[in-house]
């Protein structure tokens, strides 16, 4: 059995990587990811983790180094944030197209400018189409569990894709939480050693990263897309395995008090827990409100999502990033597009909040419900509203 400890979430993340027995960690420091990689380098220095810690000179090289070590057949981990993720941008696509099962903890942070070290989802929302599996954690326990799950899924021979586990910068990374840390035996039972189907092995030479001539490029991209789509079942399968091994259940889409709810919040990441308390308060006041949390962002679990929102009249989609030039944030833009194709009739209100570390309070969520219901009743155009802007 694991033991319940009070631990900073970054340290718990690093401990989880250690329990997963990573072979290579290549990382470059950036706030608020630093505690994760500092702790990993300590574990290596103390001999608690038998891994190569490669202190690269940039995030671009971090991801490049990860591709190299993963291609060599090593279990590979990195972590970054914000500008660091943006600097990796080019290589993120290549990691997915080369089918490298790299695991990355993304400590979500706003993007410059102006420079801001605080939390929102601008960094990862700019990387939606990199071809990675992407999950969002709501609390420290999820960070630990999703990290173990990430290796399990990434290295599954039916998948062979990199996985990004998103955790909110500071709000999660720098907070001490009660966490159930599993035993090594339990993790070993869940996650066997990485057996790559192909690697850079002089005994079995292969060429990786060849030119995609027009005759094969489209097919290569299609194969990549299919692999990501088909990873959905494997992701669920390994969440089931995680539930059996550790007793904690995860679903691609989580629902909270959605039965008979007319209005549903759609959230991602740690803000979801604040919304839960707002939902509880409003339920006490007799307002029929509930919540849907997106844990699996890529591949997007559309059927689960449609099922979760089926009974609602109004959705309040919370965005933590902007899509300048489009009257909605990235999450709302995508959901509306997918819902339209499904013939959905819900009114989709969209609020952008919590940019660059701005707190969003429970009362603001209550106001959002009032505003959304009023707009829906009046048939107002569904443009995005920025919450709490000082004007």
């Amino acid at each position, binding site marked *: 059995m694991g033991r319940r400890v009070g631990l900073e979430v970054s340290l718990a993340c690093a401990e989880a990587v250690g329990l997963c027995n990573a072979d*290579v960690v290549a990382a470059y420091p950036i706030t608020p990811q630093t505690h994760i990689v500092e702790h990993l380098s300590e574990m290596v220095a103390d001999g608690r983790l038998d891994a190569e810690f490669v202190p690269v000179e940039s995030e671009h090289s971090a991801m490049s180094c990860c591709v*190299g070590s993963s291609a*060599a057949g*090593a279990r590979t981990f990195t972590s970054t944030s914000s500008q660091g993720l943006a600097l990796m941008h080019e290589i993120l696509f290549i990691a997915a197209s080369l089918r490298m099962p790299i695991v990355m903890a993304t400590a979500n942070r706003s993007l410059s400018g102006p420079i801001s070290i605080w939390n929102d989802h601008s960094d990862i929302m700019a990387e939606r189409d990199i071809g990675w599996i992407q999950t969002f954690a709501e609390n420290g326990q999820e960070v630990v569990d999703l990290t173990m799950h990430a290796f399990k899924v990434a290295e599954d021979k039916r998948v062979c894709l990199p996985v990004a586990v998103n955790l909110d910068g500071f709000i999660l990374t720098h907070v001490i939480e009660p966490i159930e840390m599993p035993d090594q035996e339990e993790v070993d039972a869940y996650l066997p050693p990485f057996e790559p189907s192909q690697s850079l092995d*002089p005994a079995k030479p292969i060429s990786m*990263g060849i030119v995609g001539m027009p005759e094969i490029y489209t097919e290569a991209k299609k194969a990549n897309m299919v692999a990501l789509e088909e990873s959905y079942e494997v992701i669920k399968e390994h969440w089931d395995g995680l539930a059996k091994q550790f007793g904690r259940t995860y679903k691609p889409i989580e629902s909270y008090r959605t039965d008979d709810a007319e209005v549903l919040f759609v959230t991602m990441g740690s803000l979801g827990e604040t919304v839960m308390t707002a939902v509880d308060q409003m339920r006490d006041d007799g307002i029929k409100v509930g919540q849907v949390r997106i844990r699996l962002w890529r591949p997007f679990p559309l059927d689960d999502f449609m099922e979760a929102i089926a009974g609602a009249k109004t959705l309040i989609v919370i965005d933590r990033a902007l899509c300048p030039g489009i009257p909605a944030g990235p999450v709302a833009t995508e959901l509306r597009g997918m819902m339209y194709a499904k013939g959905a009739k819900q009114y989709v209100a969209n609020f952008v909040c919590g940019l660059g570390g701005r707190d969003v309070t429970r009362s603001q969520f209550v106001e959002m419900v009032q505003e959304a219901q009023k707009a829906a009743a009046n048939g107002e155009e569904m443009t995005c509203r920025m919450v709490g802007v000082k004007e």
Partner: protein
Amino acid sequence: MISAAEALKDFQKITPKTIPLVEPFSKGHRACQGCGEVLALRMVAKAVGMDMIAVSATGCMEIISSSYQTAWETPWIHVAFENAAAVASGVEAGRKALIRKGRIKDVGAKVVAFAGDGATADIGLQALSGALERGHDFTYICLDNEAYMNTGIQRSSSTPYGAMTTTSPPGPHSKGQMTWKKNMPMIAAAHNVPYVATASPAWHVDLMNKVKKAVTIPGPAYIHIYSPCPTGWRCGPETSIEAARLAVQTKVFPLFEVIDGQFILSRDIKKPKPVEEYLKGQKRFSHLKPEDIAYIQKRVDADYDRLLKLVQVTTPEA
């Protein structure tokens, strides 16, 4: 870690009679006629042998070796343009961890990164510096053809002074390339790595011995290879080795090694030919006036003298 000199104590030199017969880089590539770069690459691969794990930067050698079919008989990976050194460091770190943990056998594989001058001296300089500084056990080969040939002959920081490229065209306000060639071997040597060398396909046995030394010595090694490009230099495909030879004979590209910080000349050019002889064979220099050539001669002489002084200071017994 043992010193380079110690690692080379029992070094068995390659001689014209013992040139390896293996071809890790083989048939089926699509390089231009007379390409000096692919010839140098083949020599490097022969010297490393079948235990090579090659990492290529984007560029001519990557494109010509991997469209439709692969010319690599050993494991090979290409990721992007600027990151060959970073990818190589990952391959090395990954294998090191797996060998230590008993997951794979130590077969003495040699990680060798290949990159052009743009991928080395410009866009990949940071990744290279990082990998050299971290001390990974790998060899970095810069195949220098003195411009971005793969994209159509644009200037790089490794393009020589006065050369015409498509982005350094000569004209009433330009002599062609207006800056002096970046000295990559010296930059590599400044990282205090155990082994740095320059090499030329015109001295193929010397080139192969340098590569063999580089992969024998533990830790990072850097070899800068002069790689004539008839297409980009505007010269006949049959003249590329001649151009490579003249570059050495005119002191434009001196051949030397830096072993544990000691500079050693591979070939002292006691009776140098005038640089004009080298320049006149290539149309990329055809617009240069006598005063431009005199300026180049002066700087080439000064650079060579500085190299000689480095040799005298660091290797006084030589």
